């Protein structure tokens, strides 16, 4: 198993209700989640806004510390590991962010952005690895001289992917990485991710609110609603026979580009 999540709870201070003096009350975001991510799986995490899908992703990568429960990464419990103990593991689980404009440093060139984490984790032959990563995401090598603002949205997202795969991770978390893209770039990025997962033997968790995208990419799906898993299933089963009422609602709410679908 790449990941085993057991009864995961996470609460955060609710700053909107913080009294002037004293601590803010806590809101429970994740309310006891249990699921596994097998090696080589492409897991879709789907849910509405505020359902806790990004928080779950961040807890899995230990960008947030769970309040209770357990996160086991490749056999090792990382729930409450210190940052020092986590550091060597961090190379192995990487993240691609939703908004490439804010997750790529505008003052660094693409080459520097991809090289940064490589230096941090003590890789040798960095320039070669940067070039290789650019090849893998289908960007020309001379793009390493460019700044993020010189690229299109789809190209920027490829830089984010290149930065993640350059470290040869075992697991990648992609948080809403195509929701800001046009359909054509979206198709390109999805096809690319599919190929990379196959070729590099990656395990991928793909957070999205878009079930159509999930269906194309993922082989398992977890449906979150208000911090609880309402359904977990293989993709085909989920779409053919959704069991949870919330999953059915989500599916029925998607407008298909088909003038004959009864919808409104």
């Amino acid at each position, binding site marked *: 198993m790449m990941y085993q999540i057991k009864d995961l709870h996470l609460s955060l201070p609710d700053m909107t209700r913080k009294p002037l003096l004293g601590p803010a009350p806590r809101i429970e975001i994740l309310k006891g989640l249990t699921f596994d991510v097998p090696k080589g799986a492409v897991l879709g995490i789907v849910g509405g806004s505020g359902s806790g899908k990004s928080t779950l992703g961040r807890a899995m990568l230990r960008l947030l510390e769970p309040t209770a429960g357990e996160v086991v990464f490749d056999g090792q419990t990382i729930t409450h590991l210190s940052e020092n103990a986590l550091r060597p593991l961090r190379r192995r689980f990487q993240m691609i962010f939703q908004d490439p404009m804010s997750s790529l440093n505008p003052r660094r060139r693409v080459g520097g952005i991809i090289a940064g984490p490589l230096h941090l984790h003590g890789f040798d032959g960095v320039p070669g690895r940067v070039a290789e990563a650019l090849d893998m995401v289908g960007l020309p090598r001379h793009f390493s001289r460019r700044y993020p603002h010189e690229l299109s949205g789809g190209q920027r997202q490829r830089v984010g992917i290149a930065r993640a795969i350059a470290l040869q991770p075992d697991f990648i978390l992609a948080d809403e990485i195509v929701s800001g893209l046009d359909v054509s770039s*979206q198709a390109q990025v999805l096809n690319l991710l599919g190929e990379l997962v196959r070729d590099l033997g990656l395990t991928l968790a793909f957070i999205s609110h878009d079930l159509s995208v999930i269906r194309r990419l993922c082989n398992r799906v977890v449906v979150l609603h208000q911090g609880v898993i309402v359904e977990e299933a293989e993709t085909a089963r989920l779409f053919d026979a959704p069991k949870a009422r919330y999953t059915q609602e989500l599916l029925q709410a998607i407008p298909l580009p088909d003038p004959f679908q009864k919808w409104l």
Partner: protein
Amino acid sequence: MKSFLSIRNLSVRLKNGSPILRSVSLDVAAGQVHGLVGESGAGKSMIGKAVLGTLPRALSVSGGEIWLDGTDLMSLPPAERRRRIGATAALIPQDPLTALNPSKRIGPQITRRLVDILGWSKQDAQDRALELLGEVHIPDPARVMRNYPHELSGGMRQRILIASAFAAEPRLIIADEPTTALDVTVQKQILRLIADMQTRHGTALLFVTHDLGVVSKVCDTLSVLYAGKVVEEARMHRFFMRPIHPYSAALLAATPTYTDPTGSLTPVSQEVIDGVEAEVAQHDARRAR
């Protein structure tokens, strides 16, 4: 059918001369919904902004006509043009959080336009706002009128903007990606609401979106834009059954649908892009002559 909004060869340019809209023509009849689709940067929002006279400072209309209810807006002096637009048209914006003033209560934000621009009495405006908030299914409208925007959810805020847009009985509404910021389940409620209101009030609706799924649900007709040029204008059913322009067909093929898991997603091919770019260049060359 007589069109309420008729745009003829509208061109918009940047101050440095580069074209943003290239001779766009389209018609929207009363009670009809016309969709504007295209990728980001295609100029779909700019059409709405040109009609409302809210183009960014760096842009200006360089040619063409915008006929609103039988009058060419471009031929009117600016003050008269603004008065007419204010009295007949309204906008449902994309982001309900930036469109509402965070430091003002909801009530005055809806009534202000009625009082200041249309000269209603405060009481009439207040009554009308309450009635509209009820119409857009907001529970306890009197309380919501006293709320601040941050106290409401995204769906509620978008309902308020819809109520606000319909407040002065406009005959044209421009909806600029009104559901992009919302969850799919909320999107469905909001689209149903816009469609209901539009039908009930007989409003002409110009609907800007990048989501072809949404277009197939709310629009009667649509224009597909590429680089500020209309590449295809169609009735909705015909468009989805038989898209004529290769770029339209490519956009449809790139759109994922959960009902079709097997077909691979096809990005718009270079060949199609080259083709449509050539059309744009041809258009520019014709204009330059």
